[in-house]
């Protein structure tokens, strides 16, 4: 079912809040992986407010959908989403990165409610996602596993080992996203280690590929619903995004992979976020 105008407006409001939270935490924490957190906002908001079967009041409910943020460095975009969604008090995030805080840059699933799997070392998430998906199948349960990968992350051979296993075992209860923002740490993906023809690679590994505008709710939502209905092969949603999306001075600037904000830049970022119309 296509999203209604009202749904889209609501999601846009949530996304705006999340972007504001991301720059706030970047400021509080003295630096964060801001660029890659901003690029995945629409994907994450849509999943957490529309598609995931979860209950923040009962975070361990056995039939919940699982989500693995394989690009774990984007924890600065994940933690506030979980807080706003009701898993824990947002105020806790003022101590992000600080001594004894449960919140480090890469979220620790043993400490942070709502995080199913600890990530931060790239190239681990999809393997664990395949394991979860196969686990659900062995147990005869109908929950799904979602996995969000970075594009640079797909340099890791283990991602392709996992892809091979997902298609070998026909893990159609697994839906994978690639946040295709075209940047990593040392530069643009195609300059550091070319991924193209990227969708062909996924296809040749046995995936159904849906390539969409990763900032469009309509496009993402259509792709997710098709993926949920897919029974032949696992689906990867290649979400074309912009690193730093929503804060123009961060967009497509590799220096914002990991950056810090002073109070002036923070205020400016929030104004820019408020002005932007994304989705």
């Amino acid at each position, binding site marked *: 079912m296509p999203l209604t105008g009202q749904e889209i407006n609501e999601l846009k409001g949530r996304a705006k809040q999340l972007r504001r939270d991301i720059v706030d935490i970047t400021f509080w*924490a003295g630096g964060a992986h801001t660029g890659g957190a901003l690029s995945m906002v629409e994907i994450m908001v849509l999943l957490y407010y529309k598609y995931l079967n979860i209950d923040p009041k009962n975070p361990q409910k056995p039939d919940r959908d699982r989500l693995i943020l394989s690009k*774990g460095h984007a924890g600065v975009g994940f933690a506030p989403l979980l807080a706003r969604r009701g898993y824990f008090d947002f105020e806790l995030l003022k101590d992000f*990165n*600080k*001594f*004894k*805080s*449960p*919140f*480090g*840059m*890469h*979220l*620790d699933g043993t400490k942070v409610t709502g995080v199913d799997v*600890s*990530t*931060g*070392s*790239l*190239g681990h998430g999809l393997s664990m996602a395949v394991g979860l998906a196969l686990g659900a199948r062995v147990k005869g349960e109908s929950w799904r596993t979602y996995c969000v990968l970075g594009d*640079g*992350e797909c*340099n*890791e*051979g283990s991602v392709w080992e996992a892809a091979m296993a997902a298609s070998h075992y026909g893990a159609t209860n697994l839906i994978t996203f690639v946040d295709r923002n075209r940047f*990593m*740490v*040392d530069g643009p993906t195609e300059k*550091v*280690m070319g991924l193209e023809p990227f969708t062909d690679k996924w296809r040749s590994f046995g995936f159904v590929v849906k390539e969409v505008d990763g900032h469009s709710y309509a496009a993402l939502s259509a792709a997710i619903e098709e993926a949920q209905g897919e029974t032949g092969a696992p689906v990867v949603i290649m979400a074309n995004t912009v690193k730093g999306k929503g804060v123009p001075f961060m967009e497509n600037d590799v220096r914002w992979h990991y950056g810090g904000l002073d109070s002036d830049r923070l205020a400016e970022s929030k104004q820019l976020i408020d002005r932007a119309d994304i989705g």
Partner: protein
Amino acid sequence: MAEGLTWNVYDANTMTQVEVYGEVLARLGAEHENIVGLSADLAKSTKIGVFADRFPGRFFNAGIAEQNMFGMAAGLAKAGLMPFVSTMAVFTTMRAAEQVRTDICYQNLDVKIIATHGGISFGQAGTTHHCTEDIAIMRAMANMTVIVPADGIECANAVRACISRPGPVYIRIGRGFEPNCYTSGDYGFEIGKAVEMNPGTDLTLVCCGITVLQAMEAAKMLKEADGTSVRVINMHTIKPLDADIIRKAIVETRRIITFEDHNVYGGLGSAVAEVVAESGRACAFARVGIPDCYSLVGYPEDLYCHYGLDADGIMAKVREVLGKDFEQDESWEDGF
């Protein structure tokens, strides 16, 4: 050109450990045409990027693919080149552990590894980016030399020295914001030869990396406050270990404590314990490090304080060990 630093100390003091490394390697690159560089999407933060900018034709960014990178380094070494490889310690020694062991160490190849963000120096990043196991892992690989420089100046010395040391070398540095404990590079750095930083007769502190400076400060404060004479040893090479300096410390001070930014199991403390045990002599002995847990999150200074790896923590541990009635307690009848 002189060993070690090739610029004045002022520069070294204003540069972080990794910047020093980047600069030294770039200079070595000019002297040795067989040096090539590799990183895995961390060329900038490990500062091997300085070399990359100067010698773009001799640098390979493997992308985020550490296993492949170490395999490539082995191949480059087999082709007669001397690869310097830099990424974070955790991805070097665990993600690519088997490539390092089987492709590089087993074949005894001339690959020089400069691993950054060792220990809990990247405290805020959490366990996925901490590395408190690397010394243990690297120490267990035959043919590997393991060096943990105390500061940027020593790092420069180590990078220069590793060129003439055949076979694989692992140099472990921190995040790069650690203060210097040396004021000059001319103290006769030699791989496998520890440095006595402070003389002492009551107790010996054996340290590596960030704990060296803290131990020096603790020794100074203990002298002033308690009149205690504490020897400080910078065990910059964990393998091959300078066993003589430890045997000497056993005889002369009868008490040894090790301090390291590493799990208490398997690292410097274990290496020193092996020498103490095999010496056949009685010696009060304690190890301080990360107590076999995944470290808390936080800024490194807070964490070092929490785990007793700063000057205050070291002082407290020294007092505790000195307070134990060890030498009188020679009757073995009490059992354990």
